[in-house]
């Protein structure tokens, strides 16, 4: 077996083992834990970058390493690194749990790395469960008023139901195709996709991924979990975990080879429902994390537009969108974590006067939310543009018009956030925020990436296209 192919995953496992070791130590030291985590995660990014060009199969062909999986692994490693960078003041989690906190972040990343490479149904299922269970533990780790437990239970219950439904669907797919290997299924499924059993099986299977991505009607957990979990965990759920979900959703939809009109119709309906419900509900939110949760529900709808196009450019656009979403959301959470540095929930009204307390954070937030709204010259605009272009090419013009109307609705609540940061003045004068130099560098780098890739998307787009080709095979 070529172990080198499994390198990013092995490194993640070693990282998890290191944190396990730290958790065993009798005395906790948050500073030390943080430094170790940043160091290990940064090496993880390097390793996943180095392994981008690898390709091959492992574990009796149940596990495929190709550009598609490796690009997503880089995104996951990057997501983990950036989320750990937000943990300088990890006040939302009790100090004695810090090593465990990093441990479960790492195991979740490991599981999602497996998820994007898995090409066998049971492997996919196990990877998905492992990533979910890590998050089920992370959510109630929060120190606080008790909403964490409620959120954790809600997440577990919805997640368990979704995975049960998914397992049921998998059994149908197995029943129809007599195999659990994706490559085999891809050959058989398009020919039988019009049969009710195959269709029901696929739809039920997709439920598990819809849950991860918070697509309607599996979105109920998102606002409560976003609010209940500590800011950093929410950041992880909102970014890296979403990226993993996008990857596997693409893998499963690609199974049909674009042969099912019904599946497209179902995805169109889910996409419209997610966008509309997410956006309309976000308008009334007062809590920043809840707002981001509803916004994530709507963005799941936008990603679906790329996926349901079921073409190479559609998948490439969805990959690009996932990159864009990762960066923009991380920018938002960077601001949330730094403004609510005591680990509390951030109300939108608390952003008042941010432009004077920290002009850099205010600008980061403004660009990030404008990016989420799809305003150029940010990466968010380019992402939407690519997704919509792919959809129009497949004849989904009405869907794109609906999505654009939704983008306009979303602009309303995003502007409320900008308004709070730039126009509102706090009731009592608040001191300037003390932002550390690494955070400033991080914010500057994220803003630069957002704008530069937004203006010149060529290279990222080419990588996404090449990765999407691997998926179509």
């Amino acid at each position: 077996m070529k172990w080198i192919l499994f390198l990013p995953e092995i490194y993640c496992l070693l990282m998890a083992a290191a944190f396990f070791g730290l958790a065993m130590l009798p005395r906790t030291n948050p500073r030390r834990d943080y430094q170790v985590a940043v160091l290990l995660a940064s090496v993880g990014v390097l390793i996943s970058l180095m392994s981008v060009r690898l390709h091959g199969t492992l574990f009796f062909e149940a596990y495929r390493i190709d550009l598609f999986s490796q690009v997503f692994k880089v995104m996951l490693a990057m997501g983990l690194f950036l989320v750990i960078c937000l943990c300088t003041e990890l006040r939302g989690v009790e100090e004695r749990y810090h090593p465990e906190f990093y441990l479960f972040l790492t195991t979740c990343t490991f599981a999602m790395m497996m998820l994007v490479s898995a090409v066998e149904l049971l492997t996919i299922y196990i990877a998905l469960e492992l990533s979910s269970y890590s998050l089920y533990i992370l959510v109630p780790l929060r120190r606080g008023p008790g909403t964490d437990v409620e959120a954790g239970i809600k997440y577990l219950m919805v997640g368990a139901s979704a995975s049960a439904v998914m397992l049921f669907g998998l059994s149908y797919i197995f029943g129809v195709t007599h195999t659990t290997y994706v490559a085999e299924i891809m050959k058989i499924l398009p020919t039988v996709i019009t049969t009710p059993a195959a269709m029901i099986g696929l739809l039920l299977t997709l439920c598990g991924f819809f849950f991860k991505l918070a697509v309607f009607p599996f979105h109920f957990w998102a606002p409560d979990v976003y609010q209940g979990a500590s800011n950093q965990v929410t950041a992880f759920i909102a970014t890296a975990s979403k990226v993993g979900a996008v990857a596997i959703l693409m893998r499963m939809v690609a199974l049909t080879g674009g042969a099912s009109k019904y599946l497209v119709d179902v995805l169109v309906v889910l996409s419209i429902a997610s966008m509309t419900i997410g956006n309309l509900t976000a308008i009334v939110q007062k809590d920043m994390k809840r707002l981001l949760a509803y916004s994530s529900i709507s963005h799941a709808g936008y990603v679906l537009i790329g996926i349901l196009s079921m073409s190479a450019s559609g998948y490439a656009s969805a990959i690009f969108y996932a990159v864009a979403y990762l960066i923009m959301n991380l920018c938002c959470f960077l601001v949330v974590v730094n403004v609510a540095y005591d680990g509390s929930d951030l109300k939108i009204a608390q952003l008042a006067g941010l432009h004077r307390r920290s002009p850099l954070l205010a600008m980061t937030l403004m660009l990030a939310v404008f990016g989420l709204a799809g305003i150029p010259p940010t990466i968010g605009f380019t992402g939407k543009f690519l997704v919509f272009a792919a959809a129009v090419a497949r004849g989904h013009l009405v869907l794109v018009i609906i999505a654009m109307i939704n983008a306009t609705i979303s602009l309303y609540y995003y502007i409320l956030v900008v308004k709070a940061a730039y126009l509102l003045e706090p009731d009592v004068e608040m001191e300037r925020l003390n932002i550390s130099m690494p955070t400033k560098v991080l914010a500057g780098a994220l803003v630069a990436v957002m704008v530069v890739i937004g203006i010149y998307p060529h290279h990222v787009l080419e990588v996404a296209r090449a990765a999407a080709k691997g998926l179509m095979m």
Partner: protein
Amino acid sequence: MEFANFPYLTAILLSCVIGLLVILFIPEERQMLIKWVSLIASAVTVVISLYLFVAYNKTLGGLQFVEKVLWVKSLGIYYFNAVDGFNLPMLLLTSIVLFTGVLTMWELENRVKEFFALTLLLVAGVFGVFMSMDLFFIFVWYDVSLFPMYPLIAVWGSTRKEYGAMKLTLYLLAGSALILPAILYLFVNSGLNTFDITALMQPGTFTPFQQKFAFLLLYLGFGVLAGVWPFHTWSPVGHVAAPTSVSMIHAGVLMKLGAFGVLRVGIFLCPEGWQYWAQLMAVLATCGIVYGAFVGLAQTDLKYVIGYSSVSHMGIVGLGLATVTVDGLNGAVFQMFAHGVMTALFFSSVGYIYDKTHTKMIPELGGMSKIMPVASGYFIVAALAGIGVPCLASFWAELLVFLASFKVYPVRGALAICALVVSALFMLRVVQRTFYGEKNERFAHLPDVSFGLGLPRMILVAVIVIFGLFPSLMLDVIQTSSIPFIHGLP
């Protein structure tokens, strides 16, 4: 890669972008330096656009000063800038309004850095739309020019500023919600895998149905920004809420983006769609002219008066476009220019009066010409231009449009002319009640406009008069594009 000897058009964009970046790095307290940087950046745009206007070869016509670089290969996106007879007047207009707008805001003291940075960003977007010949870039610049309006109005504005800013932003972006699908629809259906307008506008690229469908989306999308009735409601509210220079840019330049978008994207790419929907365009434009005039009649707020007169005057642009004739196109583009300068002068004059008196309600003013004769003079010139007095730029524009519309739509043309009489009536009433008659003693001590603050208004008056006396300066340029375009129609 094809580049002209010197990338003048890119230099215009860069002067705005570099000005913006320099301002970002200047400390907030160095207000004077920030203003000078903005002034220099805007002066550079004036110099270059004037040079382009003069150097444009009218005998050759067509696209000149072309800059074309492949941007995203897989999607056929080009960084493609060029000038022709249609966008040259717009570039000149934008640079003049920006320069005078910066001078008008010279006394600003509140959050100076952000104000000028956002203004330069907005104007960079405007320049980008006018000069770009690539659909993707047109859309990108279009959105770039829209979103700075929100903070510019919401922070520095007055009179229900947050409501005005939000309404404006949502309306305009709702418009762009139709534009993007239309652009993608054209891109996909062309089968050429390019966003290059010159390639897409080749005859036979789109079927008549595709043209009709896409034109409608584009007309409605861009029409919102052009203030086409009944999608104009954001416009008077936004004008009133915005600070002086933003009103100038907004009414003077930004509304032209909408009309220009209809021309450059809708009419260029979907000429058959244009001809098909021309009747509808003419009806909506006439409604706008009549409605703007009558609603303007009832206003007591000076800025609302100008806001509704803008709706009426932009209706003239729409009517010109709807005639599908050379005269109509000439008139429409000339009117875009003339109205831009005139409205900038209007808002700049009202801005001065408002800054000093803190009111823009007509009944509270009165006899202002005895208190500030020079400032009043500027407003009166703008009002006369608005009425369409000969020897001022808008006279020629309106004349051309009405000549063309009488030939094509006699009834609608007559209606529009009648509305213009109403508009003249209300403008003269405003002038009479605000600047003549009993003077309000409360304002008797107020100073008249100084030379420095008067300078931007003087420039605007000079432009109105020059192009009023020598309309051929402008018409000769516009014709280089309008005549070949109309003659090339199927």
